[in-house]
Structure formats: structure tokens, C-alpha cells
């Protein structure tokens, strides 16, 4: 496992700066909220954390690229030759991704909320946003491992993140709408950032993060399953 981790680190260090650039972009996008001010907003925390909704796209792309990119170049065959245990390979990548996203998320979210007066709800929202970004990166990794085509994988993750809320609005039955609202990962980004009137939302902030975690675990499981069952040649 340590060897797998070291191998992944070497790959990252020596590869063209793709992942680093993507992660820097994620930090920048996440921090965008700092420019929004928000003095007279009803919920300034939510306004400041709007950047998380942009940053998550870059984080997800980083996760997808980390594995699906290897299918594009054929590098995956080498990787699996070196680390034949699929679970170990994915675990090494997941660890490295988490280690990469964490400082980026802390930086982006930190800048976004820096000038707001600290409070319990603010800290809760900021901490959860950081965890959320890490989970979305891992979700991208899982989908990337399962789908293999990096473009298709990133399309699927972006659809899940951006289009589900629109889809939900079109569901006519309010009970169904509420149930799906609680079960999809897409609404968490808003729920987490809400610090005013949060009781009116269909799901609490921590359960919402739990739903995202469940989706991430599910995607990673499918990714591991695909790695095991499908030949890496095709």
C-alpha cells in the first residue's frame, strides 16, 4: 500500500502540471464568494460560499482525471502491472486526492469567509464545505474509475451536480420532490451553506453531507468493481 502510494506520488510529481492546475483553479473558484461582499444579504454565509458550487466542478474534474486520464493514455496498464491489487491502486489514488483537495478547499473556503464575523453556524458551514469538496473529488474518482472515458465521466458528475436541482424542480409531486431532494447529492451544497431559516429545508446540514458521502462510497464501490471485472486493455 505504501509502495502504491509512493508510485502515485511519483506519477503526479513527474506528470505535466494537469492536476495541480485543476486544483489551483478549484481554490480560485471556491474563493470567488469573497468578492461578493454580502453585507445586506439575508444569509451572508450562503452568499460567500456560492463559490463552492463553481469550485466543485474543478475538484470533480481532478478526481476524474486522476484515473480516467490513465485510460486515455494507456498508463493504466502499467499502473495495474505495478499494483495488481485494484483496491490498493484506487485507495492510493483516493488518499492522494484527499491530501491534494484538503489544502485547496481550506484555502478557497477560508478566503471566501475570511471577513465574516466568526460564529458557530459559519464554522459549521465552512467545515462542511471543505468536507463536501473532498467528497466530490472522490465522487469524481469513483465515476472516473467506473466510466473510464474522462469526458463522459466528467459529464456525468457535472450533470449530477448542476442539473439535478433543475430536474427536481420539474417533479410535480411534492412528496416525491421532497424525498428526492433528500436523496440526491446535488442539493447538499446549498443546504450546507445555509445558516438562516435552515429549518425550512427538507434535510439538515449533516445528513445532507451524509447523503453525499453515501453517493461517493457507492461510486467508489462501482469503480472498484469495474476495475476488478473489466480488462484494462479495452
Amino acid at each position, binding site marked *: 500500500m505504501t509502495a502504491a502510494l509512493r508510485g502515485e506520488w511519483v506519477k503526479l510529481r513527474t506528470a505535466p502540471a494537469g492536476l495541480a492546475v485543476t486544483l489551483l483553479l478549484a481554490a480560485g473558484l471556491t474563493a470567488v464568494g469573497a468578492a461578493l461582499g454580502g453585507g445586506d444579504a439575508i444569509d451572508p454565509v450562503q452568499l460567500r460560499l456560492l463559490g463552492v458550487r463553481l469550485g466543485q466542478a474543478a475538484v470533480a474534474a481532478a478526481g476524474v482525471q486522476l484515473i480516467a486520464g490513465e485510460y486515455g493514455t494507456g498508463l493504466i496498464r502499467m499502473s495495474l502491472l505495478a499494483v495488481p491489487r485494484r483496491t490498493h491502486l484506487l485507495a492510493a489514488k483516493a488518499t492522494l486526492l484527499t491530501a491534494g483537495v484538503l489544502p485547496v478547499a481550506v484555502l478557497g473556503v477560508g478566503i471566501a469567509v475570511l471577513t465574516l464575523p466568526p460564529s458557530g453556524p459559519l464554522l459549521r458551514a465552512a467545515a462542511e464545505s471543505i468536507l463536501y469538496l473532498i467528497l466530490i473529488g472522490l465522487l469524481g474518482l469513483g465515476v472516473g474509475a467506473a466510466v473510464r*472515458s474522462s469526458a463522459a465521466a466528467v459529464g456525468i458528475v457535472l450533470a449530477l451536480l448542476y*442539473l439535478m436541482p*433543475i430536474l427536481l424542480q420539474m417533479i410535480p409531486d411534492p412528496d416525491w420532490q421532497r424525498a428526492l431532494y433528500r436523496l440526491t447529492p446535488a442539493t447538499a451544497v446549498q443546504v450546507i451553506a445555509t445558516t438562516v431559516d435552515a429549518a425550512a429545508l427538507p434535510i439538515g446540514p449533516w445528513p445532507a453531507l451524509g447523503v453525499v458521502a453515501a453517493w461517493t462510497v457507492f461510486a467508489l464501490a462501482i469503480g472498484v468493481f469495474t476495475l476488478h471485472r473489466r480488462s484494462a486493455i479495452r
Partner: protein
Amino acid sequence: MMLRAEWIKLRTVPGWLAGLVVAALLVVALGCLFASGTSMSCMAGNREVACPPPPTNAAGLGVDDKFAFTNQALDGNGSITAKVGALTSTITYPPPNHNQIVPGILPWSKAGLIVKNGTGPGADYAAVLLTGAHGVRMQSAFTHDQAAPGFASAKEAWLRLSRSGDNITGYVSADGTTWQKIDTVRLDGLPAAVRIGLFVTSPGGLTVDEKPQGGHAVAVRFTQSTAEFSQVSPASGWNDTLVGYGDYRTGWEQTHPPGHTESGGVITVSGSGDIAPLTDGVAVERILTGVFLGLLPLIVVAVLWGTAEFRHRMIATTLVAMPHPARVAGVKALVAWLASLIAGLVAVGVTLPVTTRILHANGVILLPVPWPTTVRVAVGTALLLSLAGVFAYGMGILLRRAVPAVVAVTALLVAPPILAVTSVLPPDLGAWLLRLTPAAAFAIQQSIPAYPQLSLPQTTFDGYYPLSPWAGLAVLALYAVAAVAAGTRRLRREAS
């Protein structure tokens, strides 16, 4: 020849074709999902009835046309003059406690003189009128609105409306002796016999509550307005017609019936409703919301159309077969445009008739718009998809890697409307996003334009885009051309 070769490349790769089909299917499926889940019922008093179709103006635009009309016949040319003032409104059960009926000023309550082609809702008209807080104005055709200069905050005024053939001219005066012309409007095909008279109407009292999650909640309550007309000429022969009223009367109206009373040469008229374009309802573009979802597979396919040549080094072969990078990129962009246009036309062409049928069966009446508007929304949606395909292709050959290209196109094209419409982003910032990003193109889907003479909120949250439909589409076209041009430059530089 080149076009054919590229077309075959696109057609023979199953994933790409599948992506286009999925894009079209998503648009259709979401349209059907929306249509089958939407139903409509109207109340006539406390009885639930099927919704009657709203009246339409001569162009086919759905309109509100409800007012108290104290009228008489006018045969041929002539005019009507009156001094209008004391315009007050009664608002039923407003916040904070919703337990009182209070007097108040409604900014767009209207009292004035009108000439109308009969008394049927939707019939052509021209009017000069005093409003609660927007001064004296001349309005016609339900959409035309002209303020009288110098009377922007008038609380009373002398008004005159005169007919000469098809031309109706409105005048205003502060003292009844020096008259100032406001505007002349032409009512084509107006018959000799028309109705002229005094009218009062009163749109619903609005409160707009900003929601913590972004957007706002609008509540509307019944109102009635009353105005006094004096020095009326012609002086007599007035009868009431309640244009657009049903049988139902609110509790307030049972003790304060709409219509006119006369005492000491002063005619007092009370009425409710509005004479205005109808903007509240299910607009036709709502059934095309699936375009958002369909865009993603389209973007993925179009980006791959650009990047795959580089990944498989096919570009070398292509450039050997056709050693003009600019022409190769041009032809490939054309194929991307055609393929997405076909997918878009099929998607819209299936969605509109199918969903219209489902909506009809559910008793849902779409907001009526003139048929050229419906055509513009439909064709424009297909054009939007086609330009999105070219833009994604251009970003593909510019960035050469699929993931950054897909993320960039999604962030520029799909994310801005979502941020502007369903988040706490302030509306004016959202409007700027929808001017500057390629997402401005969604304006092509907006079937109801913004009218300044309405009190309903008309922000990005409410589906109003800052740019006009074709200007918005042009923004996306510019982005698409710029992306293809930049990608071509890179190709040419690195091929030589």
C-alpha cells in the same frame, strides 16, 4: 468531399451518435415529465372549474382585460373629455396581520378614458389614464405605454381622447384650457361604431418576500380602486359594462359593487382587474427546460469531436489528406453545427407537439403568445444547441484535453443560469452573468418580454433575461466563433 469524410467520421463512431441521441431524448423526456405533472384548475368563487383560455389581443398575446367601463356608443369621429382625480384603492387583508381591509395607493391602479372596439375582453382599445403612482399615460394594444411628460407624479389631471378615423389621440391638461398631446396611436380596421367611456381598474396588491434560499415569493390580494370624474363631456348617457368580470363577487364587492354612481355632476367609478399583457402562467419555454440536461451529453460529444483527433493522432492523417488546418477546423465545426442542429430540431420538433397534447389533456393553458414568438422559441432553442455544439468543439481543439474543455463549457454555458436563477446571488450580479457569458443565449427561449408598466417582479429569478433574444444568441455565436478561431490558430501554428 471533406465534409463527407468528416460526416462519416462522426456517424461511424457509435459513442458520438449515442451522445446526440441521448441529448435529444433528454429534452423530450423532461418535457413530457413536466407536462404530465402539470395541471391547472381555476376557482369561480368556491367552485373548481376548468380554466377558461385568457383573452388575447389582435397579435395573439394573452392579456388581462378586466375593468369597470362606464360607456356609451360613439359613431364616427368624436372625443371625450373629463377631469380625473381622487384615485384611491382598497386592499384586502395585506400583511403584516392579514386581518384588515385597508385604504392605500396601488402604483399601477388605472383610471381614465378609453375608446374600445366593443366591450369584449381582448378587443382593441386606446386609453389615456391616471395611475396610482406613475402619473398620466397613454396606453394601447395592451403592450404600448407612453408616459405624459410633465405629469409623472400627477394625482389629478384633465384628460381627452379623440378619434379621427383609425387614429386615436390622447391629450392631457393641468387646467382644462391648455392641452398637451401625449401620443397618437393607430387602431387598424376600427369600425365606425365603437364604445367610449370612463374606466377604472385595479391590479392585485403585491407583496414580494425575498427568500433566504434566493428568489422571492409573490403574494397577490384582491383590490378595488375608485376614481372621481368631473366636467365629463359628453355629460350624459352613461351605462355600465363590467368588462371581463365573471359572476363571482368578493365579499368587499358585495357591499361595494363595481360600476358608477353620479352625484352633483361627479361620476364615481369603482373597478378591479387590469388592462395589461398577461405574464403570469406557464410560458411555452417551460416545456423546453430539458435543454439544460440535453446540453451535457451534447457538450461531451462535441468536445470529444475536437479532442479525439489529437488523442488518437488522427489529426496527422487528417492533415495529410487535407493539408489546410483552417479548412479542416472549419469543416469539422460545420459538422458539429449540423449534427447538433439536427439533434436540436428533432428534440424540439418532438417535444413541442407531444407536450402540448399532454398539457391540453391536463387542462393546462400555456400563456398565449403570437405564433412568430413560438416559432422563435422553438427554432432558437435548436440554434442554441447547435451553437453550443460548435462552442464545445472549439474549446475541444483549443484546450485539446477533454476534461478541462467539458468543465469550461459547462461552467460558462450551463452554470450561470443555474446560479442566477436558483441561488442567493443578487439579481443584478446574476443579470451581468447572463449578459457576459455564453449563457446569454438562453434569452432566445424567453417568450414573454419584460414590460416596465407591470408591478410583478421581472428579475432573472422570474425568467427574464437581460438581453433581447437574438442579442443573447449572438453572444453564444461570438463565443463559438472565437473558440473555433483560437483553436484553429493553435492548430495552424503547431502544424507548420
